[in-house]
């Protein structure tokens, strides 16, 4: 009697617990822009209906801020870097010394250092590499006495190559720091 009662309890337990969750096949909303409409109740069967729409992407024109500076013609030659490197080579030192002494004489002018790379790297890493190259040139100039607030820097990564052929000669030319003189606009 007692045994039968236990068995009955166990059976009841299974029934109450039910089967494990089944995979429920239901159409999922595919996109937040899809607005499902009410399903029409047909005579024979339910025919689901969906209205497909999406947001029209409007044009958002970028407001370009005017530049504070006017770029002057470059007076100095570029300095070059080894592949994947950002340390100042010995052949770049005389160029940087010339730039430093010119800046110490012409104190009203700022300089922009552009860091560039060859095209072989990937774009974000090249941008970081160009940034380190510009910074290496800046650190050299400040060590020679140029005030750091007179030096602007920008990295262009691989975006502004001087030379576009896929040759070692071309890549060598593109791995560079380029110097631009900046005059404040309106002065």
């Amino acid at each position, binding site marked *: 009697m007692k*045994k039968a009662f*236990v*068995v009955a309890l*166990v*059976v009841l337990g*299974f029934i109450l617990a039910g*089967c*494990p969750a*089944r*995979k*429920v*096949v239901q*159409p*999922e909303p*595919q*996109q*937040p822009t*899809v607005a499902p409409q009410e399903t029409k109740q047909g005579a024979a069967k339910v*025919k*689901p*209906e*969906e*209205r*497909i*729409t*999406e*947001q029209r*992407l*409007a*044009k*958002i*024109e*970028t407001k*370009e*801020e*005017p*530049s*504070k*500076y006017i770029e002057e013609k470059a007076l100095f030659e570029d300095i070059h870097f080894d592949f*994947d490197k950002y340390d100042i080579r010995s052949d770049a030192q005389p160029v940087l010394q010339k730039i430093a002494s010119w800046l110490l004489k012409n104190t009203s002018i700022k300089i*922009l250092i552009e860091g560039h790379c060859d095209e*072989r*790297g*990937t*774009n*974000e*890493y090249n*941008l*970081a*590499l*160009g*940034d*380190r190259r510009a*910074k290496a040139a800046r650190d050299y100039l400040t060590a020679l006495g140029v005030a750091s607030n007179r030096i*602007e*820097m*920008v*990295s262009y*990564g691989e*975006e502004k190559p001087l030379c576009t052929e896929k040759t070692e000669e071309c890549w060598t030319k593109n791995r560079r720091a380029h110097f631009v003189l900046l005059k404040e606009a309106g002065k």
Partner: protein
Amino acid sequence: MNRKFKVLVLIFLLFTVYCLLFTVAEAKVYIDIASPVLKKLPIAIQEFSGTSGKEISDIIRDDLTFTGLFLYIDGAAYIENPSQPFNPKNWSPIGVEAVVKGSAKEDKDLVVTMSLYDVFEGKEMFKKEYKAEREFIRPLSHAIANDIYYTLTGETGIFRSRIAFVADDKGGKGIYVMDWDGNRITRLGLKGNTILTPHWSRDGTKLIYSAERNRQWGIYLVDFISMNERKLFFSQGINMAGDFLPEGNDFAFSSSKDGTPDLYIMNLKDHRIKKMTSSYGIEISPAVSPDGKYIAFVSDRGGSPQIYTMQRDGSNVRRITFEGSYNTSPAWSPKGNRIVFVGRRGTNQIFTAKPDGTELTQITTAGNNEDPSFSPDGRYIAFSSDRDGVKGIYIMRANGESQQRITHKNLRTSVPRWSPN
């Protein structure tokens, strides 16, 4: 005692069989996409009736065949006319297991009805009516393909997803959005001299990206609901946007504001910034895992650019790439079980690996291939390549199969990023 146990086991077994029977009857899976040995499902797609009918059924066919899960049986083999009612006896002789039929009417709206039939069971397994303005014929067709895909695989399709990318725009660069198959390219008008990879918010309503404007690298956000752009961050040096975190208001980025490029997390609401790394070298390209617990990134701390992972708080840094001297541009799969990245092996190629760096697999070989990102279901990868001369956007299956260009050669395109939904 022993007998009671036997009875219990018997009851349990009966119950299990009962449950199995029910489960099988309720949800028939036509294609088990998780199976390692996949049998393609032979499917027939009849030309839809109506003036736009062919265009719609062609889009559905292209969507389904790209997945590699279906064997499309060509219309020349069909015995049944599109106008005839479905009869399984017309389909089993030519080996078809699923049949799609439909009709399109054009009134004020485009109204399309689609039916999907099971040949073995000889019954209609899905039927639905779709309405849209005429200009949304492609999203409508993709919605039908999604319903077919869901009915047959139990998984959500990606046929309404989009890809954001950068291309030339009037002397500079601009941001564009297109359908995943390369159609319906929209120029957003957001410009810069250079623009880097756009990153989607996890709900697909925002993009963040870096642009160089007037010699300054800024991080910008475009909101597709309010349709405006705002500047989030700038400083001297480089500032490069990374992924959003799952919470939606935080995003990772790299900046050289303190000297060398380091990783940060910024909150969109209060603009507070938290520094994640500080090393003497380069730390860039933060990619946030789907659960938000880990960040994969690129660092040259070991002497060459390699991919590392760390916990979100900056702890537990591990290098995951050891082959090759240049591995960059990591992105996570939506399930978090793979990382895709670019490795240089003479040329730049795309690789995937598990997040611990094991199971390294090279999946491209032709030309230079960069900027990989996964589709929302993790089954496909979008990337850029110069293999045809002009840099363009390509898609492929995550194992490297079916590589195809989706942008035209008259537009120089790069840095594709697949939308999250």
